[in-house]
C-alpha cells in the first residue's frame, strides 16, 4: 500500500513541477470557477424572476373585476417553471423549451419565449454551462496531463528498475490511478461547492450527492481509459492520437449521431401538423360557445328529461354553462390524447438517444446529469401536464359558476340588454377557483431512478476500462 502511495505522490509531484501541467490546471481551475459562478448566478436570478412573475400572474387573475365567467375563461392565466436548485450545474432543456405557458379555455398552448431564440448564435458552444465543461472539456485536461503516465516511465528508463525492485504492475497501476483520479477529484471541487449551495436552496442531500457521484464516476471512466491507453501504447504520439480520437468521437460525434438516429428511426410530426389533424376531431366535439349546435342536442334532451321540464329556460341550471363545461371536458380529452401521444413519442426518442451512452460515456453522463438535476425532458413533460391540470381545473371551476350562478335568460339577452348584461357579471370572489401553482422537480429518489440507466452505463464503462487497464498493467514489461 505504501508503495502505491509513493507512486501516486511521485506522479503528482512531477505534474506540479511541469510548467505545462501547471498552466493547463490553472486555466481549467479558472474556467470551472468562472462558468460555475456565472451559471449559478444566472439560474438563481431566473428562479427569483420567475417566482415573482408567477405570484404576479396569480395576483392579477384574482384581482380581475366582476364579469361574465366565460370572459375569465378567455382572459386566461400564466404558469412559470422556475429552475430547480441543481440547474445551477445543469440548466438542461431550460434554455430551449421556454419557461412560461399561457393557459386559456379551449386550447393547449406551447411554452413560449425560449432563451435560445433571442440569443446570439455563435457556432454551438456559446451556451456554456458548468455541466458542459465537465462533460466535454475536463476530459481533455485529463488526457493532456495523463496520456504519458506509463510511457514516461519507459522513456526515462525507470520502468525496468521499478519492476526489478518488485513493484508489481498492479501496484504501479493503482498508484498512477490514484494520482490521476486525485486530479479529477480536485477538479470536482467547484461542482461540489455548487451542489452544496443547491442544498441550501432546498435541494435534497441525495440528489446533490447523486450529481457529484455521477460526475466522479464519469471522470474515473476517463482516468481509466487514459491509463489503459497509456499502458498499452509505446509512444506518446500514438497515445495522444488514440485518446484524441476517442474524445472526438464520444464528445462531439456520437451525441449528435444519437440525435440524428433517434429522429430518423422515430420521426415525430410537428405540433402544427398534430394540431391540424386534431381539428376534425375537435369539430366533432362541437363549439361550446354555441349551445344550439347539433352536437349538444342529446345533452339538451337528457337534461330536460332529468329535470322533467319542457324548455331549456325552465332548467334549474344555465344550459349554456352546461354546454361550455361538457364541451371543454370532451375537447380536453381529445387534446390530452394528442398531447400524451406526442410526449410519449418524445420520451421514446430521448430514451433511444440515451442508449447511445453504451457507445459514449459523454451521452450517458449528460442524460444522467439532466435527470438528476431535474432539467430533463421528463421534467418538462411533467411541467406541461401540471400546467394542463391547472388549466382544466380553473376553466371548469369558472364553467361551474356559469352553470350554477348565472341566469339563463340574462345570459341569452346580454348582447342586447344592458341590464341583463350587468346581471351576468359574477362576483370577483369566484375567481378564487384558481389554485396556486408552484412547480417542483420530482422527488430525489424518482430522479435517481431515472438516472439509473445512465449510471449503469457509466458503471459498465468504468469496469471495462479499469479491467482492461489492470490486465495491461499486469502484463507490463519494460
Amino acid at each position, binding site marked *: 500500500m505504501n508503495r502505491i502511495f509513493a507512486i501516486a505522490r511521485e506522479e503528482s509531484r512531477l505534474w506540479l513541477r511541469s510548467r505545462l501541467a501547471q498552466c493547463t490546471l490553472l486555466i481549467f481551475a479558472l474556467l470551472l470557477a468562472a462558468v460555475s459562478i456565472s451559471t449559478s448566478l444566472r439560474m438563481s436570478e431566473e428562479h427569483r424572476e420567475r417566482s415573482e412573475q408567477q405570484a404576479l*400572474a396569480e395576483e392579477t387573475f384574482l384581482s380581475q373585476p366582476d364579469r361574465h365567467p366565460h370572459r375569465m375563461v378567455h382572459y386566461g392565466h400564466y404558469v412559470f417553471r422556475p429552475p430547480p436548485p441543481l440547474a445551477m450545474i445543469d440548466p438542461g432543456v431550460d434554455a430551449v423549451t421556454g419557461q412560461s405557458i399561457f393557459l386559456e379555455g379551449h386550447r393547449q398552448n406551447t411554452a413560449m419565449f425560449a432563451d435560445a431564440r433571442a440569443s446570439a448564435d*455563435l457556432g454551438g458552444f456559446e451556451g456554456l454551462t458548468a455541466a458542459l465543461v465537465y462533460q466535454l472539456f475536463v476530459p481533455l485536461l485529463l488526457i*493532456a496531463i495523463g496520456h504519458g503516465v506509463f510511457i514516461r516511465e519507459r522513456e526515462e528508463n525507470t520502468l525496468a528498475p521499478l519492476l526489478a525492485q518488485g513493484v508489481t504492475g498492479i501496484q504501479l497501476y493503482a498508484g498512477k490511478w490514484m494520482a490521476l483520479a486525485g486530479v479529477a477529484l480536485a477538479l470536482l471541487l467547484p461542482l461540489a461547492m455548487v451542489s452544496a449551495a443547491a442544498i441550501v436552496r432546498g435541494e435534497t442531500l441525495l440528489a446533490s450527492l447523486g450529481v457529484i457521484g455521477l460526475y466522479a464516476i464519469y471522470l474515473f471512466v476517463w482516468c481509466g481509459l487514459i491509463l489503459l491507453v497509456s499502458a498499452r501504447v509505446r509512444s506518446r504520439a500514438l497515445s495522444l492520437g488514440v485518446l484524441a480520437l476517442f474524445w472526438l468521437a464520444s464528445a462531439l460525434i456520437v451525441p449528435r449521431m444519437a440525435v440524428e438516429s433517434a429522429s430518423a428511426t422515430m420521426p415525430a410530426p410537428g405540433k402544427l*401538423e398534430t394540431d391540424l389533424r386534431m381539428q376534425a376531431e375537435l369539430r366533432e366535439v362541437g363549439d361550446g360557445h354555441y349551445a344550439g349546435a347539433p352536437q349538444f342536442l342529446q345533452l339538451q334532451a337528457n337534461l330536460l328529461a332529468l329535470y322533467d321540464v319542457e324548455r331549456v329556460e325552465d332548467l334549474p341550471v344555465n344550459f349554456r354553462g352546461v354546454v361550455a363545461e361538457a364541451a371543454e371536458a370532451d375537447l380536453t380529452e381529445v387534446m390530452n390524447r394528442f398531447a400524451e401521444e406526442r410526449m410519449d413519442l418524445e420520451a421514446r426518442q430521448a430514451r433511444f438517444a440515451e442508449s447511445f451512452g453504451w457507445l459514449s460515456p459523454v451521452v450517458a453522463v449528460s442524460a444522467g446529469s439532466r435527470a438528476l438535476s431535474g432539467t430533463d425532458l421528463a421534467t418538462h413533460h411533467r411541467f406541461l401536464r401540471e400546467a394542463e391540470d391547472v388549466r382544466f381545473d380553473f376553466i371548469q371551476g369558472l364553467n361551474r359558476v356559469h352553470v350554477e350562478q348565472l341566469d339563463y335568460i340574462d345570459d341569452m339577452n346580454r*348582447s342586447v340588454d344592458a341590464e341583463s348584461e350587468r346581471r351576468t357579471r359574477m362576483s370577483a370572489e369566484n375567481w378564487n377557483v384558481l389554485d396556486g401553482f408552484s412547480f417542483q422537480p420530482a422527488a430525489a429518489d424518482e430522479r435517481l431512478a431515472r438516472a439509473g440507466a445512465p449510471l449503469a452505463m457509466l458503471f459498465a464503462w468504468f469496469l471495462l476500462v479499469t479491467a482492461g487497464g489492470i490486465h495491461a498493467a499486469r502484463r507490463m514489461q519494460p
Partner: protein
Amino acid sequence: MTGLIREIRFLASDRAALLWLGIALLVACMSVFLGLREIAAQRAELNELIEIDRTEREVVDALYQDWGEVAYYTFHLTWDSPSDFAFAALGQRDTSPWKHHIRALALEGQIYETDAENPDFALIGRFDFAFAANLLAPLLLILLLHDLRSAERTAGRYEWLSATAASRGSPWFARAVLRVGALALCLIVPLWAGGLPGGAGASTLVAASLVVVLHIAFWWGVCALVDRFGWSSPVNLTALVGAWLALAVIVPAAIRISVEAAVPLPDGGDILLTQREAVNDAWDLPKSATMDPFVERHPEWADYTEISQSFEWKWYYAFQQVGDQTVEPLSRAYREGRIGRDRLAGRLAWLSPPALAERALQAIAGTNMAASLAYEQRVRDYHAALRTYYYPRLFRDEAVSDASIGQRPEFHAMGD
C-alpha cells in the same frame, strides 16, 4: 514536381494522417447526407401541411355565414421554405419557428408560437456540415499538423531533412500544404457532391467553399505559429487544442454573455401579458375606448364606428387590432433587441473564427437570425393583408359569398 510526388507517397504511408483525413471525409459525407435528409423531411412536412391546410380551409369556408365567424375560425398556414443550401447549415431552423398557423385575431398572441422539435435534440444540436467544417475540421487539422516537425525531431531526422532540402523549410511547407489541401478537399468534395444535385447553385457552393478554406487556412496559421516554438509533439498538441478550446468555446461563450448584457431585451412574457390585458380590458371599456384608437390608425372606417349592441364583430376585431397597437412599442423593442444582439454578435464574432465561419455559412444558407426575422416580417405583412381584406367586409356588413372568399389573400413563401 518529384518533390510533390515524394510527399504524396510520404502522406500515403503515414497511417495516422490517413486516419484523420479518413475521419474528415466520413464526417463530411455524413453531415451532408444527414443535412439533406433533414431538409427533405422539412420540405415533405411543409407540403403535407400546405395540403391539410387547404382542405381544412375548404371545410371551414362552407361552415360560416358571417364575416366575423369566417375570420375567427379560418386559420392560414405561413411558412419559410428551406433554401437549397440550408442542408449545410440548419442554423436557426432548429430553434426558431419556420411555420405558423395564424388567423385575423391579434397577431402578437400568435407570432411567438414555436413548433419546436424534441428539446433534447435542440439542446445537443444537429450534425450538419457547418458543425463538421467549423468545429471538427480545425481539430482534425490540428491532429494532422501538430507533429509535422516535432515528429521528425524526435525521430532524429530533422537536421538531416532540413540540410538536404533546397531551401530551408521547404519540405515542411510542401508537407503542410499537402495535408491542409487534402483536408479541405475531404470537406469540400462531399459538399459539392451533395449540394449540386440538391439544387444549390455553383456560386453558393463556391462562396461556402471559400468560407471553409479561409477558416482552415486560419487554423493552419495557428498551427504554424505554435510550430515555431519548437516544442515536442504532446506540448504542441496541448497548446493547439487549448487554442481551439479558447476560440471555439470560451470566446463565443464570453461574447454571448457580453452581448446579452450590452443589448437588453424586453421580457417576451411582458409582450403577451400587455397584449392580453389590452384585449381583455376592451370588453369592460366603453366602445369608444376601442374605436377611437382604431380610427386613428384606420381613418377610412371613421364613418362606421357606431356600435349599437354590446357585441358586434367589427368592434371585436377593432379591439384585437388595438391590442396589437398597445404592445407595438414592446414588440418593436423585442424585435430591435434581437437585431441589435445579432449585429453585435456578428461584429464580435471576428474574435472567434469558428463562430465567424458558422455565421457566414448560416448567412449563405439563409438560416441565420436575419432570415428568421425576415420570415417573421412576411408573416406580419400577410396578417396585415388579411386585416385589409376583412375590414371592408366587416365594417360594411357585407354578405359572405364564395366569390368574395375567393379574393382572400393567400400566403406565398419567398421564391414560391
